[in-house]
């Protein structure tokens, strides 16, 4: 093979890789936390058809689940300035991630809430739990427990999808990889290293989601 592998340049760019990794983590944490929050609100609104949120959520979910993430990102970054709304690249990236994950998690959490057996709610009523207690402990918590693995997967998918934010000059991990590759043309080495970083990050996020699930929602070992 003619190609000479040379990973020696990686340490020179350690600072940039760290910056890109931190940027990606930041996007994922912000997008994940706010997105799941939107998802819970959306699931409740949709399930009980709270006006006007129920309908608004329906259009929002359909719109964002049926269009490509890249196009959503371009619309926010390049399109909205025409309406006088100018978001810098990290704001646009976070907004796109939040809206995208919010739409998907709305549907995931709604599925969990809908799967609550009616008998469980009747049981709660007969125990004289308040409406709020019924919702929180009898509906939401078991629902989140059921869908938590699916939600974790969606967060990882969104994290991987954040790589397209490099297209609007957000300096996340893929941007850093493209930048380094444009300077030294070491495509294999750069992207190999970047792939390893994404893989490690995905495993870490899954683990983090497990821990969050165990401490905040389930309060008992996950099955």
């Amino acid at each position: 093979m003619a190609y000479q592998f040379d990973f020696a340049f990686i340490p020179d760019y350690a600072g940039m890789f760290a910056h890109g990794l931190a940027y990606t983590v930041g996007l994922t944490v912000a997008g994940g936390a706010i997105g799941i929050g939107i998802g819970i609100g959306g699931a409740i609104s949709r399930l009980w058809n709270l006006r006007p949120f129920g309908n608004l959520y329906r259009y929002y979910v359909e719109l964002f689940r049926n269009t490509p993430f890249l196009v959503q990102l371009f619309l926010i970054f390049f399109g909205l300035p025409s309406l006088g709304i100018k978001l810098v690249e990290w704001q646009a990236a976070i907004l796109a991630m939040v809206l995208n994950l919010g739409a998907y998690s709305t549907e995931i959490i709604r599925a969990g809430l809908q799967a609550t057996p009616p008998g469980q709610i009747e049981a709660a009523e007969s125990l004289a739990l308040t409406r709020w207690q019924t919702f929180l402990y009898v509906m939401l918590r078991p629902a989140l427990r059921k869908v938590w693995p699916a939600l974790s997967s969606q967060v990882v998918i969104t994290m991987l999808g954040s790589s397209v934010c490099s297209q609007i000059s957000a300096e996340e991990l893929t941007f850093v990889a493209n930048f380094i590759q444009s300077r030294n043309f070491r495509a294999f080495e750069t992207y190999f290293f970047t792939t390893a970083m994404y893989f490690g990050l995905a495993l870490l996020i899954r683990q983090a989601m497990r821990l969050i699930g165990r401490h905040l929602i389930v309060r008992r070992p996950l099955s």
Partner: protein
Amino acid sequence: MLNRFLRSLTLVSTVVLATLAPSAHADVLANVTKSGTIKIAVPQDFPPFGSVGADMKPSGYDIDFANLIGKELGAKVELVPVSSANRVPFLTTGKVDLVVSSMGKNAEREKVIDFSAAYAPFFNGIFGPDEIKASKADELAGRTISVTRGSVEDLELSKIAPPSAVIKRFEDNNATITAYLSGQTQLIATGNVVAAAVNERSKLRRLSTKFLIKDSPCFVGLAKGEAALQAKVNEIIAKAKKSGALNEISQRWLHATLPAGL
């Protein structure tokens, strides 16, 4: 055996060419004056310098300037479409008298052909709206500039920009331009030809030249040793710069005034 034959053939043809070549275009200027026609190589695939329009006729900056040379020489111009790869061979083999084909000067070319004075601007620069003042790299401090990642202008800008300048790098020219046009960046780093094309197609935000970051203007190419022709072409260029004729061509095709230093 075959190898040796080929080698001697190469040697012979080199010697023959070397002896024939100079006589092929001895005093081109005299020939042109005598015959009343001049053959000029122009681009056909490089707008706005030269491209073939719907009427199958070449048009552009280079074509206008070639015609200007013909007018000044009092000769009929015969346009010869060339590609960027074969424009030098066309000249060295005497198929054309001049090359007006948005050609830059470099050491390799200077070994085989001669050049006139610069006749057209070709540069990478910083562009932006009229209200932003930036005449040198230091004045980019605190400004946001869009640029295409890995391009020549990216490499140059990365070297000269002050640390407080925010360089936003995009995947391709299109995103770089859109970022500027939508107001996501204050300035843009790109080529003057690209800027001209954008100014022609979009009125959203004008791209005015702020300063040059890498300059490689275009020169007329001539065969080696044509001192009389070279002097004449230089005279025509100087006259066209002074009279404003060249500026007119620049306005028409590049939508910008001729840079003062050209």
